């Protein structure tokens, strides 16, 4: 089953995927995907993200692959639904997408063995964890000014049930910018796989339903500009679309707090 969250006619709805690019509300109404506002498919708990979790990407950035998972956290301000707009600040010179398999936790667990780790998973979705490299600093890197910006982590549209993704470690990832393929990889190339990450995190902290783990991105980064349409897709999970906007458009109508 594929589940999503939308805003429609003044209310938030949990929906499931229906035929012909439609969504089904709980009361049976069918809506065209184009007439709804997509929200992140889950209300997030703690959001984890992985740095350098694909060997080819680590090489691309001239880093040695890490020996323990390089994990950082993100706040709920970062998330954005499908088909929304992400701001590229006027002073940015290098802003790149990152297509990532997102793991959504469905049960509570502490000190979970690797063999049991996938029992904790509710399902999978797709995230695009944008980074603006101009703001990189070497304190708790990647620092929050790069990775915790408002709306710089589109996610969704669907949360796909775990059992519908029998092998999460063999999924093709593809990013297209304006219909041109710019990034391709497979989750088979992760350095620390999903089960290992859950075992590692629960060795010192409790994971709870709604927690999300963004598992890193393979090589193939490229700068994106205002107006670009960025699609991040993972085979058998979903295709997430986002559009880049510049400050002029983003702040076209605004006033400071008084």
């Amino acid at each position, binding site marked *: 089953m594929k589940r999503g969250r939308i805003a429609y006619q003044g209310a938030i709805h949990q929906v499931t995927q229906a035929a012909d690019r439609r969504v089904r509300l709980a009361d049976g109404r069918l809506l065209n995907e184009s007439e709804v506002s997509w929200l992140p498919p889950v209300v997030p*708990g*703690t959001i*984890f993200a992985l740095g350098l979790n694909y060997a080819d990407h680590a090489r691309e950035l001239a880093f040695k692959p890490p020996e323990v998972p*390089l*994990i*950082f*956290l*993100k*706040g*709920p*301000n*970062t998330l954005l639904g499908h088909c929304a707009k992400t701001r590229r600040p006027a002073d940015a010179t290098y802003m790149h997408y990152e297509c990532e398999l997102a793991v959504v936790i469905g*049960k*509570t*667990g*502490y*000190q*979970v063995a690797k063999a*049991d780790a996938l*029992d*904790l998973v509710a399902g999978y979705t797709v995230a695009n964890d944008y980074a603006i490299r101009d*703001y990189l*600093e*070497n*304190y*708790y*890197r*990647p*620092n*929050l*000014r790069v990775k*915790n*910006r*408002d709306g710089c982590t589109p996610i969704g549209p669907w949360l796909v049930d775990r059992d519908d993704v029998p092998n999460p470690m063999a999924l093709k990832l593809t990013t297209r910018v304006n219909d041109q393929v710019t990034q391709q990889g497979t989750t088979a190339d992760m350095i620390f796989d999903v089960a290992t990450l859950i075992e590692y995190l629960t*060795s*010192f*902290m*409790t994971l*709870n339903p709604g927690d999300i783990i963004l598992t890193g991105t393979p090589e193939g980064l490229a700068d994106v500009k205002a107006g670009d349409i960025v699609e991040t897709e993972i085979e058998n999970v979903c295709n997430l679309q986002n559009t880049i906007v510049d400050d002029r458009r983003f702040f076209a109508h605004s006033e*400071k*707090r008084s």
Partner: protein
Amino acid sequence: MITHNVGATVYGVILNDTVSLQKIGTLDAAPYQGAPQAPALYIKPANTRAAGGATVTLPRGATTVEVGATLGLVIGSAAARLDAANALEAVCGVVLAADLSLPHASYYRPAIREKCFDGSLPISEVLPLPDLSTLVITTEIDGALVDSRSLADLIRPPAQLLADVSEFMTLAAGEVLLVGVRYQAPQAGEGSRVRLSAAGVGSLEFSIAAEKIAADTGVKS
């Protein structure tokens, strides 16, 4: 009375006081290659929250913990792109907080195991906003005074910190921004009783225990 939303995100900042900057020494060389420009932030997620009176259990393999005594600004209304001149209007109160960290001398990579283990943020209830410029927070471990810090030496005082953080991220109502912790703060060990206090604010007490017992572990529904 304001009720603190214990599920909300807590943000913190490092190297925001002159004592810590002196202690860490030169930042020109690798890996830092320069002093921080933007506030150097970290996140304490929901699982880290502990109430006053709690016993905090250290993760497997850890025997000591740094006690980063600090004050948290509790956000009362969504805060983005604030000006320092009126940034404190977005704050509805404060919390006294002990940001516990497994000792780590390097700030280069995110310190998730070190800073995000269960219970690593004992925190008071939400209290009215005091005069922050003269506030002094003391730390006692097993009855001995181990640290006394004044918020007068902050590099970015609370209003400036809020302005600089909210320049790139929105702080939501109920979220908390800790104003800074000491580099290599005093350490407590298993069995220690810790007490933070600040005149005009209140106090926060908790104790430290060894690794969790096996009955707490595994997958739960």
